[in-house]
């Protein structure tokens, strides 16, 4: 049974729908991410789960119970706030024990649980500190420990890593994921950072302007986006408009202005003559130096297709990989990523160099809208 179900939930602030008819369910033990740009309604949805906002329409159940009319302090969920909201006038131990104290748990038992939590988030020995004596990362651990101390059925996390610096953020991704394994509690996280969602979540719901646009595993979101919005929002992508030319059960041709006819090895199931978009990920494009020889031939595409000529406009060397901006003869700029597998790979190409770009028949995602 699903631990959380959201059925047709909308939230209006005046005439504006912050959340617009969202239906989804979250399974026990999942690390679920609500992903979207700011203003997409993801935080409002989380606040409705926590009980700080009331749905205008629709129904939310947590652990099988309808949450309508149930105040935040009576819900089996706890929240890690974006600002952490650690109580500045209480010591770390008092912060973590606050929820237990409200539950009427005795001093000795409370001290045990607090120590257990301090160990869980690796803050042993810091129980007597005041929050202003902690670093940002430590404060976040206090917020985590405080929310986990009551052993909730679901932990809600509102942009948990956004206030940390880049290095710490990356380290905390792994730590949060392993913490979730350790405690076995369902995590629901709100984030605008797609890397964060892809790295930690078992499933992601992508939201746009209040609507749920796609709900999938991280790899499905990336490899099989269902719309231009998702393809563009998750990772970086080259988006090319085209017209469906032929559509057969196991192959299709899409003619584009910039890439010529593009061959894909599956059916598109669209209207022939209708407008489509091809989403081509930068790392799925192969780049070769353009000499006097003939254009490279992709073995899974008909002769002369899925290859275009261009000229390197700009190179961004990022260490682990290099990002190339290639200007096609049509004027379109394509982004290409090459991993630097050896210590000399970055010397393979230079700016202004003419190149061939080619891709496999399975590389582009064909999008209808």
């Amino acid at each position, binding site marked *: 049974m699903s631990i959380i179900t959201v059925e047709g939930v909308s939230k209006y602030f005046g005439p504006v729908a912050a959340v617009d008819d969202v239906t989804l369910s979250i399974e026990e033990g999942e690390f679920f991410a609500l992903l979207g740009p700011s203003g997409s309604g993801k935080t409002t949805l989380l606040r409705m789960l926590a009980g*700080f906002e009331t749905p205008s329409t629709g129904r939310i159940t947590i652990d099988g119970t309808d949450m309508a009319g149930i105040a935040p302090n009576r819900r089996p969920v*706890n929240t890690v706030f974006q*600002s952490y909201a650690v109580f500045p006038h209480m010591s770390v131990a008092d912060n973590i024990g606050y929820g237990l104290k409200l539950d009427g748990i005795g001093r000795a038992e409370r001290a045990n649980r607090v120590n257990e939590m301090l160990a869980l988030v690796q803050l042993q020995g810091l129980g007597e500190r005041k929050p202003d004596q902690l670093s940002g990362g430590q404060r976040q651990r206090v917020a985590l420990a405080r929310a986990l101390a009551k052993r909730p059925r679901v932990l809600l996390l509102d942009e948990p890593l956004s206030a940390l610096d880049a290095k710490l953020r990356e380290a905390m991704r792994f730590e949060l994921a392993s913490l979730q394994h350790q405690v076995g509690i369902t995590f629901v996280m709100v984030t605008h950072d797609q890397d964060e969602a892809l790295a930690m979540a078992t499933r992601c719901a992508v939201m746009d302007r209040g609507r749920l646009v796609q709900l999938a595993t991280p790899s499905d979101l990336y490899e099989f986006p269902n719309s231009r919005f998702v393809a563009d929002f998750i990772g970086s992508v080259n988006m090319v408009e085209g017209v469906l030319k032929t559509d057969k059960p196991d192959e299709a041709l899409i003619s584009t202005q910039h890439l010529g006819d593009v061959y894909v090895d599956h059916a598109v199931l669209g209207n022939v003559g209708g407008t489509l978009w091809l989403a081509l990920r930068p790392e799925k494009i192969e780049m070769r130096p353009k000499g006097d020889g003939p254009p490279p031939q992709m073995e899974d595409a008909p002769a002369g297709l899925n290859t275009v000529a261009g000229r390197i406009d700009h190179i961004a060397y990022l260490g682990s990989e290099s990002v190339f901006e290639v200007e096609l003869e049509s004027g379109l700029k394509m982004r290409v990523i090459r991993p630097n597998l050896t210590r000399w790979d970055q010397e393979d190409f230079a700016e202004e160099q003419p190149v061939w770009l080619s891709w496999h028949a399975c590389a582009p995602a064909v999008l209808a809208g």
Partner: protein
Amino acid sequence: MRRAPPGPLEYLRRWPLRLWLLAVGLFLYVPLVALVVFSFNDSKRNIIWQGFTTKWYAKALTNESLLAAFGNSLTIAALSTIVSVVLGALAAVALWRFRFRGHTLFEGGMALPIVVPEICMGVAMLVFFARILPWPPELPWPINLGPIVIAHIAFTFPFVAVVVRARLQSFDRSQEEAARDLGASDWAAFRDVLIPHLKPSLIAGALLAFTLSLDDFVITFFTAGPDTITFPVKVYSMVRFSVTPEVNAASTLLIVVTVALTVIALRFQKPQELRA
């Protein structure tokens, strides 16, 4: 070793600003110093220094009507401060927390006692206690101080509300939500999170209310009866006969009391301020 020449922003190390600072200091403190010095003057008149004595302190401290007035003042200040802090803090929280009909009107109306001339407040209080809420003068102490206490609450609680309101601006609402999230009722969240955050402003507001009440003359003058003389009113009546060093001595004692209270309050406030 010679010190480096003053930098472009080190105004305090240049003579014009030092001179200015000195002038301001003189302007502010010379009258107070004169008051204190002449309280030790061995003369009936205040003007000419005749020699050192502490007899005026002895006289002031044995002047029963002066002591009674001082006692009245402290009692009034304490009572009105307690009520003012509670009322002012609640008004500030209500204005911050809720949107309701007449919100702006209430907010403006509450600030009225701050801007209305004190003399008008005094006359208004006189009329109020003559016509609307007559207070029998023969009631036992401290109930007979009621009109003054009520008048003082009316003009001090807006100051508390303003101070608390300012502090509320820096409150992170998610802290209250965190408390609710962890199982706190509305009241528990208020008690455990909001009150500790407001503590410095409650202390500052209380201090403000206390000193405003303690040295108020105008409003008190209109609400005091023959048996409910406060310290400032008493000093005024003593001065009408002649300015003796006894008045200086009494005033010096009042200064000492208020400064001591301020120091205590600041001590109390400091750790919280640093942490906030």
